[in-house]
């Protein structure tokens, strides 16, 4: 019985991967062009596109739950309902973290690596939604300021890549750079995946022995204002990066 369940989850996981790719193609080749037809205003269009992705990701999560691939636990997420103009930071244990965050956080904007703008499945989506390209350092902060001012929250994984399971986290300085230079506070989210799966070093078909539980916990907002130093942003960014990394390691019980 357990073995049958394992093979079912292996099949269902593959099916989810395929549906995700096809879904992204469907949205960028059918839904978005239809929206273009009826919505003339460009900023309205990207707002509607962002809402479409929010709902599509929510649907995708429901589908994964329905297939028995995972279950989802959300803690304190009611505080995200009215969240505006924050940098949302999270640890990054699995491939699907960002899908969960976008599914349950309204107004999520993302800084994404440049290569996604050429990825055949995702470029239609990231362009249309107006996700922020990390290619140029100067342009990045202009785009982030604009996004925050429009009421969005910017989602960043400070590690820059998926976490090494069980190891102390190592934060890069991108998230703190956005916070310091755009004068924004942090909304931290802790993510845990039990048993661990879809990690950096494993393939999608290494499904765990039992259905996994992904838990997302929204923590108290961090006031970054002591770090808003316009004279020496590089020092402020380093201090803030250190402080947040320590906070995450301490709370997640990973010894720094």
């Amino acid at each position, binding site marked *: 019985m357990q073995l049958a369940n394992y093979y079912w989850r292996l099949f269902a996981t593959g099916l989810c991967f395929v549906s995700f790719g096809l879904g992204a193609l469907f949205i960028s080749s059918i839904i978005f062009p239809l929206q273009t037809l009826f919505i003339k205003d460009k900023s309205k269009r990207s707002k509607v596109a962002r809402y479409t992705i929010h709902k599509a990701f929510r649907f995708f999560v429901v589908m994964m739950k329905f297939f028995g691939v995972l279950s989802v636990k959300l803690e304190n997420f009611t505080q995200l309902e009215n969240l505006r103009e924050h940098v949302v930071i999270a640890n990054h244990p699995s491939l699907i973290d960002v899908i969960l965050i976008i599914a349950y956080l309204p107004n999520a904007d993302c800084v994404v690596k440049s290569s996604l703008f050429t990825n055949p499945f995702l470029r239609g989506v990231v362009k249309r939604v107006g996700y922020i390209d990390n290619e140029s*350092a*100067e342009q990045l902060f202009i785009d982030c300021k604009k996004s925050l001012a429009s009421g969005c929250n910017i989602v960043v994984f400070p590690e820059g890549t998926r976490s090494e399971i069980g190891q102390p986290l190592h934060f890069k*300085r*991108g998230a703190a750079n956005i916070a310091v230079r755009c004068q924004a506070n942090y909304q931290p989210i802790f993510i845990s995946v039990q048993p661990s799966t879809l990690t950096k070093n494993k393939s999608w078909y290494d499904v765990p022995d039992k259905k996994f539980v992904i838990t997302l916990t929204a923590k108290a907002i961090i006031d970054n204002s002591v770090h808003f130093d316009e004279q*020496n*942003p*590089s*020092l402020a*960014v*380093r201090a803030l990066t250190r402080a947040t990394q320590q906070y995450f390691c301490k709370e997640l019980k990973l010894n720094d």
Partner: protein
Amino acid sequence: MQSKEEIFSMLTELLVDEFEIPAEDISLEAKLYDELDLDSIDAVDLVVKLRELTGVKIDPESFKQVRTIGDIVNALAEISLAA
């Protein structure tokens, strides 16, 4: 007109004070991104700070070719020579 030694010691001071880089790690051969833990945003800040200090304007595009401390020293020496 500054000598290369003067440029190097100015640069060292800047990197220690404003980028928290340990002085003992800084040498002409040290690689900015791999060894000194600088990132692309720091590079932009560094160009700004160098302009404030020396009045020399390095083109951010040409700064992207820079790999080591020695590359910066040479670039600054060249520009101030040309000026």
